[in-house]
């Protein structure tokens, strides 16, 4: 019988990554002075399980490497050696190394053997530092038995088996033992009842019998020993070769040394015990509840189906809207709508994961960075359990990391500088996530030096981003740091790079339908706020009518809608229109004209102006503003191709297809048409 284990290999790899995360998390929280034994246990178990699985699946290098780590951890665990900061660092490096080994396996690349070797020697050096090694007895020395030369296959074995009375209490049954012996060859079994007491004294739970078994010689002694392997301490055992009538040799072995267990071949079976270890605590709130792994494809499929269901249900409701006399039908449809709505909400939630998945990268990052930069940082992560859609989660990781790096690199001062400022030596960094409205807001705030506004303004003027003589509000200056190529860092540091960071960060966040902003106070600190929609698959949309078609505008970006009044609209020399909003002139984009690509001169503005704010303002001219609804975003790219100014498409309740407009791109177009190259500075929402 052979069992296909390749499916388990994937699971092993995934679980190993998780175990590595556990190791890392544990190592980071380990207090050198007073290491928490529970934490050490967790780390040990994680390493242990990686090793076990690696061995099973033939990942020899990983198994060997992890084994060394495990031995060291075992020594720590049994308190025969202590924990030092260097040790923790080395182990963290080992974690990284194993990650790269797994990665190498995945991409079929070479494992960096030198790195492994270097770390292994370092680990071994730590080990040899112990005065008393508490190492688990290595396999090699365990076997001291002398093996019988097997030249004479004739003759047999005489096995005298005298179990101790309590042997039954361990679940062992001599009957089974003898059964196993019988599997080795022909047996003659003799039982001895010499120790059997009288009935009154007989304890039914004890064993008073012993056996002598004569086994014909077609097996090896080691095979016999194996059968008794578990029972060594609970019985007297004698194994003798039966005297060959010709040869007079008789040797009896001392069984007191544990027999070596034949090592089962590697590469066959995954390890886990029947009672599975519980999901390691990675600090994720959902750990207590049980979970199963599901292919993301299945979830996608499911969510699509639910989306279709919503549309169908909505269509049916609409068609039946006028069948008011059918009371039961209406009631049923009502119920159906409610159920479907709930189904949709729940299925969207399936893809929601706690933001901790992203947060968990941070402790390590912050630790490494603060070491490199020689800064002291005390950080706090809040709101780890805040849930976000998986698609958003994946994309928010890099921007978040970049902002944190930025904070550490530029925002936070050196301990020296902080003391001079009268601040505490350790800087405070707080990263928090929470739900606000239909969004998730992530805030990264530090008590560092804050933004140097005058310096930023100067830089912007140098770059021509800002005209000399322009008056900017503080928040407008703060926004400048998100401009491309902007960095006031005196030396470009290795860590956060050449100032290409923040603008890319902003772009990435915008592409998620979100936004990022910054506020700061000189000498006191800086706060970055990232706002993201809870899910990228569903949009709160404002339906608008343009030239006979229905389009969808994202509600998130809509500032307000106004009826067009001539008095508010100015026509520029180039024919473009602008709308007067507060003290500014906002470019108007006539959607009908834009989409129909007509060359006719600007028409008299009629209809509704929808004011869009994506950091810049534009007014979109539409014929009419219709209802608001949640729409499921369907990708145009996947089904057709990418079209500029469109963010996707959706199917409305009546079955009609509506195109979803991309607010950012619309605003950009509006500005381009106006011939505005520089970005007018706006207060960010």
């Amino acid at each position, binding site marked *: *019988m*052979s*069992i296909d284990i390749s499916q*388990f290999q994937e699971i092993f790899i995934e679980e190993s990554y998780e175990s590595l995360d556990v190791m890392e998390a544990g190592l980071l929280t380990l207090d050198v002075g007073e290491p928490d034994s529970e934490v050490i*246990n*967790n780390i*040990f*178990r994680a390493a*242990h399980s990686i*090793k*076990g*699985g690696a*061995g*099973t699946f033939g990942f020899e290098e990983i198994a060997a490497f992890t084994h060394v780590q495990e031995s060291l951890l075992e020594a720590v665990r049994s308190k025969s050696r202590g924990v030092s900061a260097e040790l923790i660092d080395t182990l963290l490096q080992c974690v990284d190394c194993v990650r790269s080994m797994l990665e190498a396996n995945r991409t079929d690349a070479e494992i960096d053997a030198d790195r492994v070797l270097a770390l292994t020697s370092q680990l071994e050096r730590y080990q040899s530092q112990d005065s008393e090694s508490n190492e*688990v*007895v*290595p*396999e090699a020395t*365990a076997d001291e038995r002398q093996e019988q030369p097997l030249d004479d296959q004739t003759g047999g074995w005489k096995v005298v088996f005298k179990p101790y009375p309590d042997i*039954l*209490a*361990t*679940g*062992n*049954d001599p009957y*089974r033992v003898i059964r*196993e012996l019988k599997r080795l060859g022909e047996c003659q079994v003799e039982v001895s009842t010499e120790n059997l007491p009288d009935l009154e004294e007989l304890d039914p*739970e004890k064993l008073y019998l012993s056996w002598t078994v004569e086994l014909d010689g077609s097996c090896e002694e080691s095979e016999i020993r194996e059968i008794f*392997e*578990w029972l060594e*301490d*609970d019985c007297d055992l004698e194994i003798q070769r039966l005297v060959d009538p010709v040869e007079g040799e008789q040797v009896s072995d001392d069984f007191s040394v*544990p027999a070596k*267990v034949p*090592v*089962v*071949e*590697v590469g*066959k*079976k*995954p*390890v*886990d*015990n*029947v*009672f*599975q*270890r*519980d*999901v390691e605590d990675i600090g994720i709130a959902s750990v207590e509840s*049980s979970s199963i792994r599901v292919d993301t494809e299945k979830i996608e499929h499911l969510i699509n189906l639910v989306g279709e269901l919503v549309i169908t249900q909505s269509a049916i409701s609409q068609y039946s809207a006028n069948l008011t006399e059918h009371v039961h039908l209406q009631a049923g449809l009502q119920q159906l709508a409610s159920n479907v709505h709930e189904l949709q909400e729940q299925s969207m939630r399936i893809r929601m994961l706690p933001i901790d998945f992203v947060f968990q990268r941070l402790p390590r990052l912050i630790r490494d960075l603060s070491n490199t930069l020689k800064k002291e940082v005390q950080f706090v992560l809040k709101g780890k359990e805040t849930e976000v859609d998986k698609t958003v989660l994946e994309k928010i990781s890099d921007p978040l990391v970049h902002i944190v790096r930025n904070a550490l690199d530029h925002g936070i001062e050196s301990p020296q500088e902080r003391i001079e400022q009268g601040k505490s030596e350790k800087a405070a960094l707080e990263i928090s996530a929470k739900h606000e409205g239909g969004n998730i807001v992530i805030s990264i705030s530090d008590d560092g030096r804050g933004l140097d506004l005058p310096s930023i303004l100067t830089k912007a003027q140098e770059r021509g981003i800002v005209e000399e003589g322009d008056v900017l509000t503080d928040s407008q200056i703060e926004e400048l740091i998100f401009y491309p190529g902007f960095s006031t860092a005196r030396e470009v540091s290795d860590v956060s790079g050449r100032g290409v960071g923040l603008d890319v960060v902003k772009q990435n966040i915008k592409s998620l339908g979100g936004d990022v902003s910054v506020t700061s106070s000189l000498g006191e600190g800086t706060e970055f706020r990232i706002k993201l929609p809870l899910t990228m698959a569903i949009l709160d949309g404002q339906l608008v009518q343009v030239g006979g078609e229905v389009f969808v505008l994202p509600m998130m970006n809509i500032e307000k809608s106004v009826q067009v009044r001539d008095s508010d609209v100015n026509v520029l020399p180039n024919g473009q229109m602008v709308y007067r909003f507060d003290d500014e002139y906002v470019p108007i984009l006539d959607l009908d004209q834009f989409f129909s690509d007509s060359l006719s001169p600007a028409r008299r503005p009629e209809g509704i102006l929808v004011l869009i704010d994506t950091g810049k303002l534009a007014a979109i001219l539409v014929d009419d503003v219709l209802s608001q609804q949640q729409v499921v975003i369907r990708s145009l790219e996947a089904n057709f191709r990418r079209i500029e100014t469109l963010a996707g498409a959706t199917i409305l309740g009546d079955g009609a297809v509506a195109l979803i407009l991309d607010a950012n791109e619309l605003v950009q177009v509006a500005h381009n048409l106006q011939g505005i190259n520089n970005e007018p500075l706006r207060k960010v929402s």
Partner: protein
Amino acid sequence: MVSFTLQRAGYQVVEACDGAEALELAQTSDGVNLVVTDINMPNMDGISLISELRKLDSYRFTPILTLTTEGSSEKKLAGRKAGATGWIVKPFDPESLLATIRKVL
């Protein structure tokens, strides 16, 4: 995955995620005929689980096997001292696992 092999071979398997849960499950309905346990577990480790099981009437003579890694003889002995029937060494292949299981059932 141990359960997978066992189930494929026709055994009914009940899983627990740690010693504490195992102890609970062992006492439900008809109980089990064989217990296979890891040593390193949170909440209640294998050794404790074995001692606890042996205190129960219905489990005094039930075969209990521990999963250990090669070479950790102290673990094996500790298991036996606590009352385990024997052990299975990791990593193992399905055939060996089943052979061992057959030995105790």
